[in-house]
């Protein structure tokens, strides 16, 4: 039985799963229309190209349709589908030819005798007040993330944006949890460097 976050049985979701497992065509159409938009957004974030993202979503749904018979309802459908589309997107990403990339080292903070070389500046709050500022900030952050070297961009996406935990992320990337943690930390440091000129308190030099 599908459960809601507070442990109550979600009869709506359980009924949908039963219809899917019985091969009900309308149930499949419902699933694609309700879950598809979020899945496409995830694929677009990971792949940065709309055609590839659409293909990844299609592959994800096909995998899901094949596996629905084994779905036991222990997790929410949306969580299960989220994992499938993340996986499908990562596989496409892996198959792309790599372009030459900037080294992460150039983006990490510098130290001399153990102390900061570049004095850190105060940042303004990440909570902008209106919808336009929120959208512009999101677009800026996304474009700067897209400039990171691929391996670092991917781990940042999976952990801090898609919300996967260290263990899941490490498994998907084929590295140890400790390696995933270190890579994430360096990705965050690199993104911080890129964001810094845009985020300083207004009026600061």
């Amino acid at each position, binding site marked *: 039985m599908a459960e809601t976050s507070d442990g109550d049985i979600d009869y709506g979701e359980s009924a949908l799963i039963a219809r899917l497992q019985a091969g009900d065509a309308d149930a499949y159409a419902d699933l694609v229309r309700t879950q598809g938009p979020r899945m*496409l957004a995830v694929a677009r974030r990971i792949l940065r190209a709309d055609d590839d993202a659409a293909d990844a979503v299609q592959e994800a749904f096909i995998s899901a349709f094949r596996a629905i018979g084994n779905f036991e309802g222990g997790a929410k459908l949306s969580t299960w589908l989220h994992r499938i589309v993340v996986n499908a997107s990562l596989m496409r990403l892996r198959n792309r030819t790599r372009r030459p990339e900037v080294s992460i080292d150039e983006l990490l903070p510098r130290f001399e005798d153990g102390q900061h070389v570049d004095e850190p500046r105060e940042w303004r709050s990440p909570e902008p007040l209106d919808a336009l500022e929120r959208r512009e900030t999101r677009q800026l952050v996304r474009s700067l993330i897209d400039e990171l070297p691929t391996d670092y961009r991917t781990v940042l996406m999976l952990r801090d944006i898609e919300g996967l935990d260290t263990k899941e992320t490490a498994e998907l990337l084929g590295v140890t949890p400790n390696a995933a943690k270190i890579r994430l930390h360096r990705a965050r440091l690199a993104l911080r460097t890129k964001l810094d000129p845009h985020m300083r308190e207004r009026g600061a030099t």
Partner: protein
Amino acid sequence: MNCRECTDFLHDYLAGDLPESQQRVFEGHLELCPPCLTFLESYRKTVKHCEHVKDEPADALPESLVKAILAARSTPR
């Protein structure tokens, strides 16, 4: 602890994974080092900005994609 070491521990500190003795040393450094305190805040805000990327609205799937997905389901393997 110096600033370089303090920076190395940021991830674990924010995740609540630093052993207590190390946490005390870390926080002791922050009390004496305004640059590292400022750096920690900007690191924390960087993570917050990443979390907000998810807030972008999800547009409806193009109808052509919906049809392609449902057609692929009906296609025998």
